[in-house]
Each structure stands twice: as structure tokens, then as C-alpha cells.
């Protein structure tokens, strides 16, 4: 074939192809095939990057010296970096990078040594003797010792802060010698150590006396792995590595905390790499980040339980729900699994009771499960074969999808003949009514609890007339809670929680709903980040790869 003929052939072929492409459907299929092959290539690329990620997690070692800047986006700016004044979790977990306490939470919420190397408890659980480390200095070089602990206790327990009660738990704290300190309690408090771990942040006495509260608020300091650098209100908080930290220098040079109130913007910030860790994402947002390059979604159960409360103190008196069988029936009537699947993409755990996963004594009871037949039988036994009517209320805008959850529950209860009229209320008004115990006999809410135990949630929601938000009182529960409080031994306490859980299934004061899952997203260059269930975390072990 000569060159000229060849080119004519090519030209004809090209024209033919174009003509075919314009009219023939077969050609369209060809282009589609091309797209398919491209898609295959893309999937392969994703697999490769995932493999790379796994390798980096295993092999990369922490840098020798603190390196890089970690940006953590939080949903609201802290009200204060003085730990006893921190008003909510995002504030207290931020400021805790500056401080240490005597003890800290380890695996599974177990208490571990921190500034105290060890401790002893007397037999009746009213005296705790802490043996302190002797090699700790504050950020300004002041030595940490027993006097500092005494000073901190005196300051925070008498300052009239809203959260001073965490320090008032101890009725006296005194120095035994330079590195031994003894805390005395009026009555045994099993949660004392977790209270200390969560709240007793140590600040330097000499510095505080020199600069005063205002000066300390402007430039806080403790013994923690990071030192305060600056705080531009509403914009950022900067901390830098404490090279003289008693556990050794941390592995990140600078940590910046940035408030981003809008969660959609936090999602954008992790995608652009402007933030390395973003907190408080919804399940939809977390799902939208799955498969995004350089982003890893982290999820963990939250120490919170959602519930519909019964009332035997005010509005619920003389109602059918005074009968334990009715309350059991109502637990069987609600299909919590379907609610979780439909509204939370499956990202929540059905609650088996008021003690949730990750807390002491969890695991000896099962969730009621969805069983409308048993529910009907129980209602029949209780003398309500045709059901009854009842009022229910839920707050609006306070919790994710909670309005829909309540509507679903009203529907499920309707299915077994319980005619619920649901009222959705603005949350401010709702909590006023709840505190005054004026809500309808069925009302929805949720309760968190810090410190690895459900104790404060239980006393808060079941404390009867003495507790602001309780609508329920039961002497058996009171008795078990008193025993739990007086039992310092963790295993014995776990058994008591178990007993309480069983009782609270026989005689449920709530319709147990679910334990939510918390989502965060982190950049894949962040290594060693492992948040605790109450949103606490320790940046000491965290480092950045590729810096």
C-alpha cells in the first residue's frame, strides 16, 4: 500500500467513524466501555492508597524531636482555659493539654498514675493518700509538690466556680511530706479517683499568686505536655511543646485549636487539609468523608444514653405507667433497631439500660428488643387490653434527629394501642418544665456522664425530688446507688451496677433508646490519636507523618 493510499484510507476511516458516531448506537456503547475502563483504574488507585495508609500506620515511627503543627477544629470556642471554670467538654478537653492531674484514665476507663505515682485508700474509703512524682515542674519552672496540690484544692473548692463541687468532694487535703498528700472525704465516694482524674488540673501556686485570676486566665499554665502560647478570642488558641515534660517531650511542636461552629465547614476544612482533626460530625457528614483522600473517619461510642422517661413523682402519678408491666410493654413496643437504621444510618447502639458500653458494670443485660406481641400480652395482663391515652413531650433542636425519634416512638406505641399525643417544644422552655417536673408523664431526653461510670447519670435522672431533672423515685434504686457510692472496690461496684441493671429491666423507669456514636475525622498524617468515650484525648502520643 502506497503512502497516499494509506492516508486516503485513514481519512475515509476517520470520516466513517465520525459518521457512525453521529448516527449509529453501536458507537455509543464503545465510548461507554472507555468510561468503564477508566473507572476500574480509579478503583485500583484507591486500593493502592489504602495499602499505603496501612503501611504508614505500622512502620512510621514518631519523630525524635517535636515536629509540625497540628490543627484541631472544635465546634465552639472555650469559655475559659482555667480547668475548673470550663463550662463544657470542648473547653475542658482543650485546656487539659496544658495540665495534668494526679491520676488519669487508661484503657477501659481504668484509673492510672499520672502526677501521683501511686496511692493508697484506707479501709472505709474516706482517706486517699497520694505519693507524688518528685521530678515534675510547672511550665514556669516552679516545682510540683504536695503544697501545690493543697493550694490547688483550696483555690478551686473555695472560688465559687460553677464546677467547684468536683473539688468539694474532698473535705480536706493536706500535705504529709514534700511529695505525699492526703485527701479526706466526709463519706466514701467510689467515684473520687475518676473525679480527680477528670477535674483536678494542677496549676503553679507561686505564679497564680503573682498574676491573680485575671492574669492566669490571660496566660494559663500547668505541668502538661503543651505550653500556652496565645489565645485570639474566637479565632485560635496556640500551644507549643513542653520540652521539659516529665514524660519526655511530646511529638508535635505546635497545636492550634480553631473554633468552627458550622459542621459543614468543618467537613470542608478536613478535606482541604486546613484542619488535621475535626470533631462533632453527624453520621451523614462522616459518611460523606468516607473514601476521601487523606481523610480518616474515627468513631467511638459516647457516654450518653437517650431515653423516654416515665414520671412517678408529679404528672405520672395515677397513670397506667405506674405499673411496671406497662413500662416493660412500652419498652418491647418500640423498635429501636429500626429507628437507629433509619435515622442514624445504623451508627448508634441500642441501649440495654442506663449503663452504656464503656462504663463500669456494662454488659449483663440485653436490650428489650422489638416484640409487639409480648407488649400486647403484658398490657393485657396489666389490665389495659384496649390500651390507653397519654401525653408525651420532646425537645426540638437539642439533639440530632430526636424529633423524628419521638414521632417514631409515638407511632410504635400507637401500634400496641397506646394513644400518645406528642408535643414538641423549644428546648429552653422544655428544660424549664423538666426542672420544674411539669412535663407530661412521658418525656424524651438524654443524659451523659463522664468518668467511666454511669453513677451521676443514675443519681441525676433517678434522684427523685432532690434532683433537678429527675421525675422518678424508687427506694430499691436509691439503696443500690448508695451501696455503689460506698464501695471503693471496682469489681464489687461493677457487680452492684449489674444488679441495678437487672432491677431496672424488671421495673424500668425509662424506655431505653440508644447510645449515640461520635464521629470525628482526622487527616491520615495524624498518628496515634485515640479519643476516649467522653471526648477526652491525650495529644502526648500523637505525631504527624511527612513533616
Amino acid at each position: 500500500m502506497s503512502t497516499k493510499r494509506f492516508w486516503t484510507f485513514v481519512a475515509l476511516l476517520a470520516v466513517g467513524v465520525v459518521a457512525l458516531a453521529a448516527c449509529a448506537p453501536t458507537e455509543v456503547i464503545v465510548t461507554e466501555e472507555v468510561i468503564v475502563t477508566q473507572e476500574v483504574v480509579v478503583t485500583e488507585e484507591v486500593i493502592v492508597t489504602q495499602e499505603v495508609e496501612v503501611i504508614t500506620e505500622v512502620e512510621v515511627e514518631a519523630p525524635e524531636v517535636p515536629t509540625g503543627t497540628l490543627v484541631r477544629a472544635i465546634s465552639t470556642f472555650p469559655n475559659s482555659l482555667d480547668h475548673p471554670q470550663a463550662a463544657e467538654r470542648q473547653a475542658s478537653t482543650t485546656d487539659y493539654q496544658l495540665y495534668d492531674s494526679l491520676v488519669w484514665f487508661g484503657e477501659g476507663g481504668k484509673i492510672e498514675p499520672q502526677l501521683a505515682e501511686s496511692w493508697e485508700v484506707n479501709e472505709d474509703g474516706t482517706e486517699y493518700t497520694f505519693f507524688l512524682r518528685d521530678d515534675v515542674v510547672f511550665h514556669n519552672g516552679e516545682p510540683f509538690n504536695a503544697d501545690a496540690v493543697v493550694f490547688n484544692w483550696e483555690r478551686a473548692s473555695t472560688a465559687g466556680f460553677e464546677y467547684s463541687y468536683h473539688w468539694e468532694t474532698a473535705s480536706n487535703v493536706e500535705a504529709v511530706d514534700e511529695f505525699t498528700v492526703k485527701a479526706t472525704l466526709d463519706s466514701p465516694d467510689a467515684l473520687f479517683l475518676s473525679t480527680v482524674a477528670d477535674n483536678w488540673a494542677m496549676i503553679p501556686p507561686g505564679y497564680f499568686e503573682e498574676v491573680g485570676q485575671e492574669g492566669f486566665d490571660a496566660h494559663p499554665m500547668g505541668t502538661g505536655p503543651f505550653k500556652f502560647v496565645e489565645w485570639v478570642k474566637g479565632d485560635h488558641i496556640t500551644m507549643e511543646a513542653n520540652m521539659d515534660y516529665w514524660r519526655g517531650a511530646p511529638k508535635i511542636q505546635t497545636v492550634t485549636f480553631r473554633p468552627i461552629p458550622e459542621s459543614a465547614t468543618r467537613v470542608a476544612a478536613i478535606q482541604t487539609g486546613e484542619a488535621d482533626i475535626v470533631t462533632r460530625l453527624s453520621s451523614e457528614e462522616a459518611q460523606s468523608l468516607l473514601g476521601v483522600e487523606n481523610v480518616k473517619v474515627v468513631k467511638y461510642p459516647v457516654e450518653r444514653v437517650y431515653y423516654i422517661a416515665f414520671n412517678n413523682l408529679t404528672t405520672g402519678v395515677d397513670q397506667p405507667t405506674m405499673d411496671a408491666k406497662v413500662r416493660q410493654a412500652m419498652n418491647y413496643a418500640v423498635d429501636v433497631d429500626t429507628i437507629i437504621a433509619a435515622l442514624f444510618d445504623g451508627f448508634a447502639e441500642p441501649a440495654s439500660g442506663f449503663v452504656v458500653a464503656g462504663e463500669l458494670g456494662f454488659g449483663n443485660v440485653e436490650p428489650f428488643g422489638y416484640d409487639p406481641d409480648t407488649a400486647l400480652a403484658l398490657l393485657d395482663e396489666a389490665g389495659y387490653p384496649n390500651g390507653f391515652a397519654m401525653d408525651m413531650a420532646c425537645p426540638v433542636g437539642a439533639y440530632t434527629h430526636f424529633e423524628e425519634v419521638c414521632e417514631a416512638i409515638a407511632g410504635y406505641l400507637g401500634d400496641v394501642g397506646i394513644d400518645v399525643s406528642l408535643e414538641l417544644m423549644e428546648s429552653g422552655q422544655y428544660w424549664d418544665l423538666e426542672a420544674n417536673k411539669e412535663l407530661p408523664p412521658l418525656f424524651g431526653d438524654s443524659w451523659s456522664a463522664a468518668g467511666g461510670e454511669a453513677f451521676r447519670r443514675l443519681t441525676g435522672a433517678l434522684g427523685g425530688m432532690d434532683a433537678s431533672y429527675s421525675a422518678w423515685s424508687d427506694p430499691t434504686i436509691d439503696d443500690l446507688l448508695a451501696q455503689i457510692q460506698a464501695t471503693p472496690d471496682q469489681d464489687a461496684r461493677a457487680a452492684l451496677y449489674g444488679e441495678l441493671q437487672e432491677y431496672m429491666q424488671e421495673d424500668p423507669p425509662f424506655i431505653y433508646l440508644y447510645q449515640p456514636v461520635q464521629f470525628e475525622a482526622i487527616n491520615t498524617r495524624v498518628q496515634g490519636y485515640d479519643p476516649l468515650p467522653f471526648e477526652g484525648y491525650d495529644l502526648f502520643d500523637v505525631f504527624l507523618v511527612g513533616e
Partner: protein
Amino acid sequence: MQRYFLSKLGQSILLLFGVLLLVFAMVRVTGDPATLMMSRQASPEDMEEFRERMGFNDPLLVQFGRFMSGAIVGDFGNSLHFKTPAMPMVLDRLPATLQLAFTALVFAVVIGVPLGLIGGFNPGSYIDNIARGLALLGQSVPNFWLALIMILYFAVELRWFPSFGRDEWKSVVMPAFVLGLPVMGQIVRMARSSVLEIRGEDYIRTARSKGLERRTIYTKHVFRNVAIPLVSVIGVQFGYMLGGSIYIEAIFAWPGMGQLLEQSIGWRDFPLVQALAVFTAVVVLALNLLTDMTYAFIDPRIRYGK
């Protein structure tokens, strides 16, 4: 002139009093702050103690008196959430909000005024069509939606601008654009319709028929008259941007007063909300006063009027 000024000043002070009354009353009908401010573990006694300490148990008149005497010197008490004086916190945030509002205003004026004028002088031209389209778009697109879309496209996709914060000059571009767009729209429409209206006035025809130069007609007769409604729009809108950029500041995590207001409402932080509301009201009233002064400067009818 002086009388005009004094009467406007009197009106402003009266309005300010009304605002103070409203601010005082409004935060007290939204619910009991004790239930929101206190932790869930708080006992009923703790709550009562809190109400007593904050003075929420006193008669309303006593509370109002206390509020007014503090408000006059800018003292709104300590923020409940932040535990520090409320007014200095507001002033801390002022530069960020001013920067955002000012940039947005400059953007709206620089784009909006020429477009509106050109459109008004050449109705039906293609620049006029573009201007009208932009104006309609600017005024009808919900700006929280636009803000999110812009973040998705210009920050996440293209990486042209940071998605949040106030770090570099680029940070202000997206929030200022979103904040300024509806104002721009309004300026375009106002300028255009004023020009159209004034062009048809008798005195313009007279000026033209007596042989005045086009340029003289525009500068002496048209622009001056167009300026009056424009100044009022700009004055009002600048006030609106200073106080009303709550959700734009929240979406872009812009550390200004709007974001502080959004958070303080969430915390039901009475003193802070009051300080913010009163401060914004004072700024808006001052701006209105300034606008009125500018009228007098532009419009001799006001200057020489009785």
C-alpha cells in the same frame, strides 16, 4: 440645619431607649436561665442560689433599673458563660466584623453603583440586562446556601481560598462576597431606577433644552439626585451587615460579633446577648444619624429647610 440635626438626635435617643427596653424584656421571656446555665447535676437549691445571685428573683422594675444604670456606662455585667465583662468581649470582636462589613460594602458599592448607573442610562442594553440579572440573583439567592456552595467549590475543589477563619487577606474574600451580594443587588436596582426616574424629570429636560453639556447635566442634576436614595440604602445596609452577619460569620468561622452572638444565644448568656444587641443598636443608630447628616450635605432642601 441645627434643628434638623437636633430632632434626628432626639429621635435616635428615643429609639435607643426603646431598644434597651426591648432587649431587657426579650431575654426574659425566653425561659429560665438557671435551667440552661446550670449543669444537670445541680440540685434545686443550687439553682435557686444561682437565681438569687444573678438577681433574677428581684422585681422586674428593680432589674430594669439595674440594667439601665449599667447600660448607660456600657456595663452589662459579666458574661455568664465566659465569666468576664461582656462589653469588652464585644469590642474585642469589633475589628473582625468591621473588616468584613467594610470589605463587603466596598465590593457592593464598587460593583453595584456603576452597573446601576450604566443600566439606568442605557435601559435594555446588554450591560443593563447583566446588571438586572445580577441584582435579581444577589437578592434572591439565600446567602447561607451560597456560602456553603462557595466553600465546596472555591475552597474544597479549587483550593483558591481558605474554607474558614481570618488568617490572610484571602480569608475575607468569600464571606465578604456572600455578605455583599444582596447589598450589591439592592444598590444596582436602586441606582438604576433612580436614574430612570430622574432622567424623565422636567428639570432634566429643561437643562437639556437650555443647552447644558451632557456631563454637566449628569454631575449637577442626575448624580446628585441619585445619590440621596443610594446614601440611604448604603447607610441602612452597612448597619445591617454589622449586626446581621450572624450566620455568615458562623459558617465561615469568622471571629466577629455575629459569631459571638450566635454562640451566646446558644448559651443563653443574657449579659452578652444584651451587650451585643445594644452595641449593634447604637452602631446602627449612629449610622442612621450619619446618613441623615449626609442627606443634608447633598440635598440643599434639607440643609435650608425649616
